[in-house]
């Protein structure tokens, strides 16, 4: 038999619809209690509103709690009754304004009944549901203080503390005087028959240790924290993964809550009971301090909320930085240190050398052997000494260079604004051959299988024999091609995008294998990992496309166009967006693992080197951040936007800037 215990059970005190109600209105119990109606339905029976007929002159109301004993085994049945009576007796000895008075206890057939004070009011769950918007913090602090007070009373009970075990909004009533009253002392707890079959819905408020069978006073503080979290955020924990409060910081959902209150709730929600408040008294003291507007010092618990040392917060002050739960986002620069000198000094970055050109550097430098090759808008391709940045030679084309050079077999290949692809010797820059296309070549070439694959603004992808520069074939697309082709040698496939948004896969014969359409230009150059081709589009998305069919497996949206090209590891793709963030995207799900915020657009394509990622931003900085979590390692300020993409070799970062400089920085 499947025991279908859904959230309806946890909500059961309200919804009586499909639960069996044993007693009809008009029934009399013991000739004394006249049932008037049902107050709620629980797992083991109902709670009724009744009139005590012993008081003939007045309408004396009581609540009658019923426990239906369904245990088939007589011994077990007897034990359940005994325990019910024992707990009833215990409750009868309690005396606290927040605990309803017990007045009678009796059995009738297989049903046990407990008669108690009728509380005319509403439970906090109903109060919450009936409130448009958020409840005021001051009100909730007041309730919390009263609840700490009654928990203190229970926890200091002699000879043994009483653990309430079921703190939640629906078990707290608000009476006519706006005082909180605890109801449902979980008398039947621990006697629920073993559950069979899969069930949905968790209790939501219970502490983790309760599922190991531990129930101590610290568990009540956790449940109180969970209750306060629910009351302040309106996010029902029964509808969320269990113990996931740390993923929903209170102030992120309800920014009007004070940092002090959030810190108090976080501490009471620590997974480890030892990291919560020492007692309900201690928690109450901090709440009272908060209420009086005093500075609240809460030692954050480490097991639920990561973060630093003591958080000292005065109510009304701005929030401290949120801990590990929020998306990683680092402010762009220390304020007041915006000049290059100061900031660079701050991170201790001094370039190994700087080479100044006559125009902006937007390309990717190419360090090979003893040279660094760098193409510049001033019509020159420079070869510089890698060791010290000294000029070795330059080659001038008839147009500027927007593309970046590539190197193969001792030669350098690069396209120019003059429409040509040049082949030069790497040693001296002597031209070997050139290949004419119909328009500017702004696409960086790809060398594979003895051929050069390069796009042109003439809308064709050109496949050129690298020995002699003869055309092998061309493939026409609807728009200029600036995306650098990616080649899968084994599968004999070429991938590239065009400025109209189409993305193409050709075989080595130049025949279309498939085409994928995004809504805007694909300038980004594809990369490949685990059967997926990954690229960005000006339609704001990063795509992961199955390589042999062209069908997207995922797409991930950023806030602005993506012209940056992805760098990949086995697990993640790293790519910049014009929204200013560098994204780390899980290649298996397309989910954003983290993002790093810079001060302006990122057109630069990141480079991965050892355990870090390097890239530039239009905010003028070159950034070095951690591969695993995007934490800033260092940044270096240039005097212009950094659109250039870095190349990192032998612990040196080579990157250009629109300030006309090529920088060599220690990685």
């Amino acid at each position: 038999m499947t025991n279908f215990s859904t959230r309806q059970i946890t909500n059961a005190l309200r919804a009586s619809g499909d639960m069996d109600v044993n007693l009809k209105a008009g029934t009399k119990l013991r000739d004394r209690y006249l049932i008037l109606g049902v107050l709620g339905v629980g797992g083991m029976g109902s709670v009724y509103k009744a009139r005590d007929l012993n008081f003939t002159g007045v309408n004396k109301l009581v609540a009658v709690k019923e426990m239906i004993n369904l245990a088939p085994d007589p011994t077990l049945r007897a034990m359940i009754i005994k325990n019910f009576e024992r707990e009833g007796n215990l409750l009868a000895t309690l005396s606290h304004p927040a605990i309803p008075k017990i007045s009678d206890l009796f059995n009738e057939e297989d049903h046990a009944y407990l008669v108690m004070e009728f509380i005319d009011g509403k439970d906090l769950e109903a109060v919450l549901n009936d409130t448009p918007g958020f409840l005021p913090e001051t009100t909730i602090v007041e309730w919390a203080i009263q609840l700490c007070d009654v928990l203190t009373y229970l926890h200091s009970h002699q000879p043994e503390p009483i653990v309430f075990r079921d703190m939640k909004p629906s078990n707290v009533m608000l009476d006519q005087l706006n005082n909180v009253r605890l109801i449902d002392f979980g008398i039947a707890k621990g006697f629920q028959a073993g559950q069979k079959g899969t069930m949905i819905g968790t209790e939501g408020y219970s502490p983790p240790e309760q599922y190991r069978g531990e129930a101590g006073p610290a568990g009540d503080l956790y449940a109180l924290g969970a209750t306060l979290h629910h009351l302040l955020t309106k996010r029902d924990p029964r509808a969320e993964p269990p113990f996931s409060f740390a993923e929903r910081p209170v102030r992120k959902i309800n920014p009007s809550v004070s940092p002090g209150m959030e810190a108090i709730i976080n501490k009471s929600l620590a997974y480890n009971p030892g990291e919560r408040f020492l007692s309900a008294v201690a928690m109450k003291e901090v709440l009272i301090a908060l209420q009086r507007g005093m500075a609240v010092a809460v030692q954050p618990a480490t097991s639920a909320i990561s973060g630093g040392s003591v958080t000292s917060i005065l109510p009304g002050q701005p929030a401290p930085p949120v801990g590990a739960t929020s998306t990683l986002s680092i402010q762009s620069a220390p304020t007041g240190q915006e000049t290059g000198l100061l900031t660079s000094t701050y991170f201790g970055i001094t370039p190994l050398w700087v080479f100044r050109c006559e125009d902006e550097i937007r390309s990717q430098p190419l360090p090979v052997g003893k040279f660094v090759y760098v193409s510049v808008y001033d019509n020159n391709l420079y070869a510089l000494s890698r060791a010290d940045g000294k000029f070795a030679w330059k080659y001038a084309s008839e147009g500027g260079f927007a593309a970046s050079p590539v190197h193969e077999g001792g030669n350098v290949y690069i396209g120019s604004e003059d429409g040509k692809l040049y082949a030069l010797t790497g040693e001296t820059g002597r031209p070997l051959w050139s290949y004419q296309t119909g328009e500017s070549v702004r696409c960086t070439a790809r060398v594979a299988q003895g051929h050069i694959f390069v796009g042109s603004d003439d809308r064709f992808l050109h496949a050129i024999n690298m020995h002699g520069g003869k055309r092998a074939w061309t493939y026409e697309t609807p728009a200029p091609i600036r995306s650098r082709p990616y080649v899968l040698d084994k599968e004999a496939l070429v991938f590239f995008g065009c400025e109209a948004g189409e993305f193409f896969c050709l075989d080595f014969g130049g025949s279309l294998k498939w085409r994928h359409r995004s809504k805007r230009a694909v300038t980004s150059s594809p990369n490949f990992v685990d059967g997926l081709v990954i690229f960005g589009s000006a339609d704001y998305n990063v795509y992961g496309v199955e390589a042999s069919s062209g069908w997207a497996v995922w797409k991930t949206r950023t806030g602005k166009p993506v012209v940056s090209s992805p760098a990949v590891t086995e697990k993640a793709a790293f790519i910049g967006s014009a929204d200013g963030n560098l994204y780390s995207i899980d290649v298996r799900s397309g989910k954003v693992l983290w993002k790093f915020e810079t001060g302006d657009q990122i057109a630069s394509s990141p480079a991965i080197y050892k355990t870090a990622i390097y890239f530039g931003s239009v905010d003028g900085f070159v950034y070095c951040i951690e591969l695993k979590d995007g934490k800033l390692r260092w940044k270096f300020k240039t005097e212009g936007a950094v659109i250039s993409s870095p190349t990192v070799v032998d612990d040196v970062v080579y990157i250009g800037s629109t300030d006309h400089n090529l920088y060599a920085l220690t990685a």
Partner: protein
Amino acid sequence: MDFFKRLFQRKTGSEPAVAASPSPTPAFVADTQQAATAPLNIPAFSGSNSPLRVAHAQSVGRVRDHNEDVLLTLTSTFDGDEKIPSFGLYIVADGMGGHSLGERASAVAARSIAREVTKHVYLALLSDSSDNEDRAPLQEVLLEALTQANVTVREAVGEGGTTGTVALVFNDQVIIGHVGDSRAYLITSNGLEQLTRDHSLVRRLQELGQLTPAEAAVHPQRNVLYRAIGQGEGLEVDVYTQRLAPDTKILLCSDGLWGLVEDDQILEVVRHAPSLQIACDKLVAMANDAGGHDNITTVLIEYSP
């Protein structure tokens, strides 16, 4: 004349895709002048079988009197000069809820998911268009299919709920969509890897270090889920993709199997069984031998391109 040009006389343009031509003729190989620089390794035609093979088994178990589990398999083969991606859709759903709500929930969910996925993926593959325009990413299709199933189950079944674990194989990628505590395992020469994460209370407690796996296995509340299809709005669905290496197997199963048969026993059976079907039958028999206190469902898929 250039080698490339000879090989590909057809002037390129925006023509529809045509698969690579069959076995290159010796004439091209003999074209010596460019051969050194143009080793065009056009993939040769291979007359292989479908890359996907599948078997399944199901049992009501030894305690229950009705079956709330559902399985669905759909494997497509399309071979010839023209090829379309290999496609396989496999679903396991484990329903819950009294008064036959459970079996209805799992069946409604499986049908709804299969309907959405075949419509948006399989029928699109069979259409004549070679463009991938307006084709939603596969992960979004699965996400949408499970989200839609959530709505459908609530409308059709009301109080019932179900798990849903879906494997969509598309060429060498498998996209997994998952809600609940049915499981997908990847079985390779490296061993067995659980691809899905149980949306269960005890799994969550384990992740927090509050329960050991041994404690979780016998915990009285081990069957409590915090996420299921058919339960409330805003269902969160796990979707992720895995590339399949050749000779990889995927096992989908309900908790009636994994709750009673240990992971290493499962691996042992799958590795050594002479066929997929025998492996499935054996796994179900083992779960029944161990008590069979719940419905048992297994779907075993082999990818060998």
